[in-house]
């Protein structure tokens, strides 16, 4: 860290004003994601622990789940990750317009994912009669996927705010790190879903 190095550089992976060359925001985001690993690790553990010994009378997850819908929303989330990666790529090149389109698509996919989740929850509660209070499966399932959904929602809000912000003219390739750290968050939400898709959904079909 030194103020001697004043020349700006456009290489997004090197910030000469920090000791390690990694931008502060990126380091912050990675440290936060490490913390979030523990967060989701504990939450997923809770679900799996309760799955080990289901008390009698617990509805079977297999009867409740709809793997087609979940596969679709998993696909959507993966695609939103792709669009996010492209958005970061675009802003690093300084291509604001391309970034906006990519961001918009990411938001769109994020909203589809959330829509699927809302549909899924409504379907479970009203038609399959699995609620957050009526069984331990409902409790852990809704809490886990709901917490993930909340992360997606926060991501969508962040993306939207960034999209709006990009029209103020204050967002240039020099601030690409802002978009990039947002991207890290979004991808993390995606990889958490990769784990949930396997550990919560697919596991029930074996």
């Amino acid at each position, binding site marked *: *860290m*030194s*103020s*001697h190095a*004043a*020349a*700006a550089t456009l290489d997004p992976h090197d*910030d000469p*004003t*920090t*000791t*390690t060359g*990694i*931008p*502060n*925001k990126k*380091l*912050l985001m990675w*440290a*936060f994601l*490490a*913390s*979030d690993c*523990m*967060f989701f*690790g*504990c*939450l997923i553990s*809770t679900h799996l*622990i*309760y799955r080990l*010994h*289901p*008390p009698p009378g*617990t509805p079977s997850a297999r009867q409740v789940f709809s793997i087609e819908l979940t596969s679709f929303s998993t696909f959507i989330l993966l695609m939103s990750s792709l669009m996010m990666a492209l958005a970061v790529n675009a802003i690093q090149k300084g291509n604001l317009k391309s970034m906006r389109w990519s961001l918009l698509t990411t938001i769109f996919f994020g909203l589809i994912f959330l829509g699927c989740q809302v549909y899924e929850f409504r379907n479970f509660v009203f038609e399959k009669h699995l609620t*957050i*209070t009526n*069984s*331990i499966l*409902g*409790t*852990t399932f809704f*809490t886990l996927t709901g*917490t993930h959904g909340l992360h997606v929602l926060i991501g969508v809000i962040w993306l939207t*705010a960034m999209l709006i*912000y990009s029209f*103020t*003219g*204050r967002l240039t390739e*020099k601030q690409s*790190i802002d978009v990039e750290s947002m991207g890290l968050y979004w991808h993390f939400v995606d990889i958490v879903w990769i784990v949930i898709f396997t550990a919560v959904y697919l596991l029930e079909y074996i």
Partner: protein
Amino acid sequence: MEALAKTDFIAKDDQPAKPLVLWRPTAKTGLISWLTTVDHKRIGFLYGLSALFFFIFGGLEALAIRLQLAVPNNTFLTSAQYSEMFTMHGTTMIFLVVMPMGAAFFNFIMPLQIGARDVAFPRLNAFSFWTFVVGAIVLNIGWFTKDGAPDAGWFGYAPLTTRTFSPTHAIDMWVMGLQLLGVASIAAALNFIVTIINMRAPGMTMMRLPVFTWMTLFTSFLIVLSFPAITIALIEIMMDRLFGTNFFEVSSGGLPILWQHLFWIFGHPEVYILILPAMGIISEILPTFSRKPLFGYPIVVFSGASIGFLGFGVWSHHMFTTGMGTTATAAFSMMTMAIAVPTGVKIFNWIGTLWGGHITMRTPMMFAIGFLWMFMLGGLSGIMHSAAPADAQQHGSYFIVAHFHYVLIGGSLFALFAGIQYWFPLMFGRMISEFWGKVTFWLVFVGFNVTFFPMHFLGLEGMPRRTFTYDANMGWATGNLFATIGAFILAIGVATFFISMIYAFFKGERAHKDQWDGRTLEWSLPVPPPEYNFAVIPTVHARDGWWYAKKHASEIAKETAEHAKEDEAHGGIHMPNQSIYPFLASVGILIGAIGVAVVDHDPSPGFWGTKVAITILGGAIMFVSVLLWACEGADGFHIHLNADGSVREDGGHH
């Protein structure tokens, strides 16, 4: 963010003007300056002040407990009051005293030790502090409501904390308060990690970091990685209490033991979060006052790392009596013994530091050596617990109470007191009286041992903790009376400390720069340090950088003069702007938390009325504040130093 802003700054002029809400406060004195400050030293001071304030609270709770137990069958407190006292004593001392006191030193000292002008994210730092205050308020608000303070013990084992067994809002406040303290701690810790990794002065390689900074780094990692576990546990109990979920509802197959696991996955690293900063402080004081570099620096650092890492694998030794089965018990028993090795290594190296040195017995040094003795005792009784079958007799008894007070008072608190005495001249430019410092030490030392040593015997004689009364025939009366007398001696010692500290703050003898002939960079600063810390960012050439600089004064002076010119050529000293939004965001959180935890929901079925409204209001305030916080950006201004050292600010505030 701030580091980047330096380069941004040059190109600021071509940016559009900001709307009124994004104008930055500039007050340097008065209430607004404190609410909007982003200066790590001011925030450190605020942390310290709050910690000392809650220390009085926690201490009074402890005295109430000791008074109740002074004689058998006492009626000073009712059972319900007693439960509130020990719950809040534990919670307060851990989360509102030792942790923020550590945070105070992290904030104040760590950036100075690595030669930085501030932490990586100054506004996030302010947010951490205000959220900590908010959490403390929510935890303590129960004393003033009809529900009373939280009363289920500091580790709040489910299902005692479920609605069935704790129907009032007291536990909601405890849950919400801890949740907010978790948010504050994680935010602060992330900031410290980035600061230490990324904001070091030129030449400050990792293996030249002062040990205190190393321990700050490890502590921050522990916070970041362990708090999520309790966050999940608290979310689960909160869901149970608010929405009737089944996490700990036994009749639906809930497993209360899960709470214990999640809690101690957090709780054991938490113990190291409390002790590692203390070890860091001790590793600063011992070399300074024995005029010798720290013995075996790399080993001290690596043992710190291994304590931190192993600390995640021993949590179940708090649960030896829960019937985990033989294999699990054996595994955790062995892991616990293993963690004693790096801890022992530290003690050996501290003694190695003293060996062959020139020991000056100033007050900080007395506390530091007191720490060595007491921490050794606490550590050894810890080894006794690792023998699981023997622990079956000790668990939940006063033996445990004795053990962890030896670690937390004899360890953490002695070190924190030592730290205050050590850095007070730097922080405030005044000296705490040496005479009264020594009086404090002996009162605290004697009082502490008289209080807690008999508790070992009480525990082995079968006295369980958290009991508000006992019969005379149990043979516990003498020990308890001793303990109570000791507690009052300890209290007098602490009072002496507070008074001498307050006196020193206003009227104490002026300290001079580098009061103790120190080794690390913070001692290169004038006392108290100026807002910008370093007139010129120092270049570090050795592990004990300031000792090196003093030995090579002329070369360093030349180097500094060159860097000063370069600095000025690049626009002077960059300072971050103040901001009100971290504070406002925390206020929003407070309102939301009160909505969740304190307000009764409307009796009308299906709709929670006021509760939801207040919660949404708080959430909205927080959301808007964070949004404006993001939009105002990490701007700053420049300071130029005149030849006489006076300050000239440049071009107004951006």
